[in-house]
């Protein structure tokens, strides 16, 4: 690796991503009580930190390759994706009422996490030669079916959150691919009309989550408990926060899932509005750079990839943080680069590596 290579890196994006990961390690540490003598110790922070370093190393290594070669593997990756998701259905073990995990030695993998990036790549490959030609339902249906299969497999796990991410990716990418806006509007309209029908296909706990989202006090000790406690945690952080390790909601376990899905509430409680707004600004930089990279991409495939990755990350940020603050229903999707979870971390670092790779290739003409 030489200086020229380095000069072609998007440092703004890198700094934002690394800053989020560092904040994540500190917050996971606090949420898992590394300060308390009796509690679990550094296990979670260590694992997350080690995987962050390994993934960054892998990402640096992958910079040697050109993302454009991925286009050729679009179909194969798609098949692998479907096989993986089927494997989860057949061999996966379940936790918390959902079958999402595959045990590989000491590591528990969550294939639906990886499937999001694989989906982006294969969808970008598919859409690449269809840009500007998505004008009718007939044009769109094959693509919808292409996304629909993995979507249904994830929904069946059941993992409503991740399946909704698929829709976000789908919508973001076909929008960038120039889908006819009237057609897009019609799809939205149909979706709204169909929602009462879809309601019947939801599991009871999913219905409950939506009801609780509309009014957490429907079930204050059950599903509503998470939202209420999370809002209390964030709100009680006030402007400057209670201080690291001082968040009573988190430290005394009133806040459930505080190192995974509700990690933003720990930030809000312990670092206050200042910390929460700072983290959100880091995400803004990250996502803003994502769209810039799409704009500057040297080819349509790269542009579609960048839009897909950014759509995925943006949807995660919106739904996860919105959920902790009571403006989105509880869907259980993690906060990118923040939530504890090896599969999600790997997926997100790979996604950002993809953005950087696209960025690197854009200026080839200049040098």
């Amino acid at each position, binding site marked *: 690796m030489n200086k020229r290579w380095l000069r072609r890196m998007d440092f703004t994006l890198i700094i934002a991503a690394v800053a989020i990961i560092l904040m994540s390690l500190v917050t996971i540490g606090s949420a898992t009580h590394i300060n308390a003598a009796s509690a679990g110790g550094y296990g979670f922070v260590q694992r997350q930190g080690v995987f962050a370093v390994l993934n960054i190393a892998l990402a640096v290594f992958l910079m040697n390759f050109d993302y454009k070669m991925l286009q050729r593997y679009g179909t194969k990756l798609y098949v692998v994706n479907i096989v993986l998701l089927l494997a989860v259905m057949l061999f996966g073990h379940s936790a918390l009422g959902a079958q999402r995990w595959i045990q590989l030695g000491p590591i528990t993998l969550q294939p639906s996490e990886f499937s999001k990036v694989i989906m982006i790549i294969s969808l970008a490959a598919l859409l690449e030669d269809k840009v500007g030609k998505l004008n009718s339902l007939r044009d769109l249906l094959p693509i919808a079916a292409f996304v629909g299969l993995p979507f249904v497999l994830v929904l069946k796990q059941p993992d409503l959150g991740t399946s909704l991410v698929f829709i976000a990716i789908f919508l973001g990418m076909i929008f960038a691919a120039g889908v006819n806006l009237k057609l897009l509007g019609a799809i939205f309209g149909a979706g709204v009309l169909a929602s009462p029908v879809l309601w019947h296909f939801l599991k009871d706990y999913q219905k409950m989550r939506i009801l609780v989202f509309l009014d957490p006090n429907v079930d204050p000790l059950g599903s509503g408990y998470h939202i209420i406690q999370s809002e209390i945690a964030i709100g009680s952080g*006030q402007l400057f926060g209670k201080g690291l390790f001082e968040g009573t909601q988190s430290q005394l376990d009133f806040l459930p899932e505080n190192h995974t899905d509700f990690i933003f509430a720990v930030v809000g409680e312990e670092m206050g509005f200042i910390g929460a707004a700072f983290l959100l600004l880091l995400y803004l930089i990250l996502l803003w750079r994502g769209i810039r990279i799409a704009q500057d991409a040297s080819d349509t495939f790269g542009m579609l990839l960048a839009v897909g990755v950014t759509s995925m990350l943006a949807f995660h940020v919106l739904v996860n943080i919105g959920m902790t603050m009571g403006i989105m229903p509880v869907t259980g999707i993690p906060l990118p680069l923040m939530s504890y979870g090896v599969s999600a971390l790997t997926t997100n670092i790979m996604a950002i590596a993809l953005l950087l790779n696209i960025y690197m290739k854009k200026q080839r003409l200049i040098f």
Partner: protein
Amino acid sequence: MLHEFELRLKFLSGLIVLVIVLLIARAGYLQVYQGDEYARRSDGNRTRLVPTVASRGTFYDCNGLSIVENRPSFVVSLLPLTAPIQPEVITRLSELLHVPREEIDAKVKAHTGYEPIRIKGDVGADILTVIEEQSALYPGVIIEVQAVRDYLYKAQGAHILGYVSEISETELDERKDEGYRTGDIIGQFGLERIYDKELRGTNGGELVEVDVTGKPVQILGQKDPISGHDFHLTIDWRLQAATEKAVDDQLSLIGAQAAAAVVMNPQTGEVLAIVSRPAFDPNLFVHGISEANWKMINENPNDPLDNKAITGEYPPGSTFKIVTGTAALSEEVVTPNEMILDTGVYWLGEKGNAGGEVLGWLDFTSALSHSDNYYFYEMGYRLGVDRLERYARMFGLGEKTGINLPYESEGLVPSREYKEKYLDDEWYDSETLDAAIGQGFNLVTPLQAAMVMGEIAANGKRFQPYLVHKIVDADGKVLKEFQPKLLSTLDVPDEVIRLVQQGLRDVTKEGTAAGVFGAGFPVDIAGKTGTAENSQGADHGWFVAYGPFANPNIVVAVIVENGGFGSQSAVPIGKRILEAAFGLDGSIPFAEAPGNKRR
């Protein structure tokens, strides 16, 4: 076409900015705009105020002997914080503690808030070990150490001391403003009730930080409880014990069930002993009385929870002749020396002495000492009911003495007004005769009977009876010292009181109590027997007395319900009380006991 893509990507950028701005705005709303409210809720989540119950004040007798204290008791309680108690845990606990399941269920159902639900107190080490060692089988079950009232002498003095129990819903509603809270212990009877506020002290508390399971993490703040005040009573516990024994022995001897006795110092109003039978053990109430015990007390026809010495109202019988005699001499309807012939049957009403005894010629003192009904019928006839009423009221009858105990009765003074008001009928002369010998529309409490005798002993001075000598705080500082309170003085010539005293003195020498006292009683005693007619059953026996005659410091009133003649039922009790009071039973006499040198 390219321009179109640029626009779409710019739109996506805008969308992203919008999302982030929306999220920051929401965070600002929660954290800055509503931050205070959420901070309050967060504190409410993590903090619990755990009350530290103040130790209740101690009772001492007049010699500084401790009578009522507090002792630690292990209580098995339920604490449902995050989840309801599982039914199988309740079943297990019910078997372990031998408490019916329904009883536990009822308590759990009635429970609100964070206070533990107390299931059983005074649990032994065997049960504590089981619960501690198998704590996994008893989730939500905790063991608390509670200070409970310890009545060291069980039923002795129960009617003076009273008892305590957990505050009931209705009491809570009535007394919420006075600072009472759910689960508080409150005095229900006797001094415990009257002085509850002084005895209970001020509860302290700990502000404890708890985790989500309710387990305390650290103490954030602490307010120490302030112990209740200690009470030094006028009661002489030794004399109280002797009085109780005298009453009990006599009751079992004659087969009676109910009785009452009061012992006072007539020169001050200090109450030295109060006994009421049947009694109860206040210790039964400290953990909430069991169904069986409550049934036993509540269904006893003689009502153990009644303090008959101040609540019971009885016809005064011949003890009322003290009032009639004082009135007759003061109003000069008779001279001390006028001889009246008891012919057996008085012309009006055709009544005479019980048993038809005819005593012949009598002057005032011999009529009083022999309790001659004929003579006092004549006095009543000469006085008329109005004057009789006036003197009865002068003695303080028909009104509460104001003793510091709850549920005192007023008694009843014979009057035209009463009869007209309640019976809508005019007064007949024959009723005056009944009133003159303490029957008819005439009721007194044993305490009032003692007061009447005490006024004669104290040359007409009527002191308010009181039970508390001083109230002392936990540091030993005297907060209040009670002094004798002169309520009134009999508005009669000294000569009259001397004549009445003379007649009463002869009662134990040659009169109705002479048989019991005999010739050799070493202390000069004045007394008066009485027999209260009882339409419901056997007559009640009365005896009132004071001594030593020259300088009295003891007055006694005794009534034995359904005991028959006072001379046979009540006098033996009175005699034994006087023996104890004057040290004739081998003990230290009251007047010389260390605590009583103060006057």
